[in-house]
């Protein structure tokens, strides 16, 4: 099943402490690979490898701007705030309809 593959990718991507640190840095906003390496004992090829895994899991995406490549949390990925907001914008109206029905039932 595709969702199982997807889960396995996320587990693998975030199971590594370095990748988790990279992911958490990106949660604060987009960054280049060299900015991400600041304060971390990690070579450029190793960082590229970690970013490739995060991208493969759909957690992070890259955005090319001229000579630079910025990395950011994938706004369509499961980790993003955008996805969270979208989910609950449609969730609450349904819950409120159910609450309205319950309030009507409580009269009887």
């Amino acid at each position: 099943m595709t969702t199982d593959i997807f889960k396995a990718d996320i587990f693998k991507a975030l199971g590594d402490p370095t990748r988790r640190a990279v992911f958490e840095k990106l949660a604060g906003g987009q960054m280049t690979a060299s900015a991400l390496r600041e304060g971390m004992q990690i070579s450029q090829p190793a960082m590229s490898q970690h970013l490739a895994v995060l991208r493969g899991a759909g957690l992070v995406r890259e955005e090319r701007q001229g000579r630079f490549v910025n990395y950011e949390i994938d706004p369509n990925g499961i980790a993003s705030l955008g996805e969270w907001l979208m989910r609950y914008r449609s969730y609450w109206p349904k819950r409120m309809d159910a609450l309205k029905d319950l309030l009507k039932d409580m009269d009887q």
Partner: protein
Amino acid sequence: MSDAPGRDRNKQDNELVLDYEFDAPPDKVWRAVTVPALRERWLPGADLAEAEPVSSIAGEEVSYRMREADFPHRESSVTFRIEPNESGGTRLSIVHRFAPAELRQWTLRAANTNRSMMRAA
């Protein structure tokens, strides 16, 4: 019915703030929101981290921790504020927050699950 649809007044980008108006009086809405058997009818326990509220001020506001049933089981907090409105009914405000702390929590949980998966393998 004069029940108004939700009004959206988000202040921060990591939270949803929604207002709903109900014809029912505040004490009745309070019961619907806090009595577990009634709450279950519109907000199922499957969507909560725990059935008990995290905090509450009797008759005014109650907060629950939410936890998504599906992976990666994101957690969030929701507060329901209840107050009388101008037409004898109730204004119910929902403040639903997805904080960076929750984001960290589920990344850590994913990491722990990953470790136990490797142990099991």
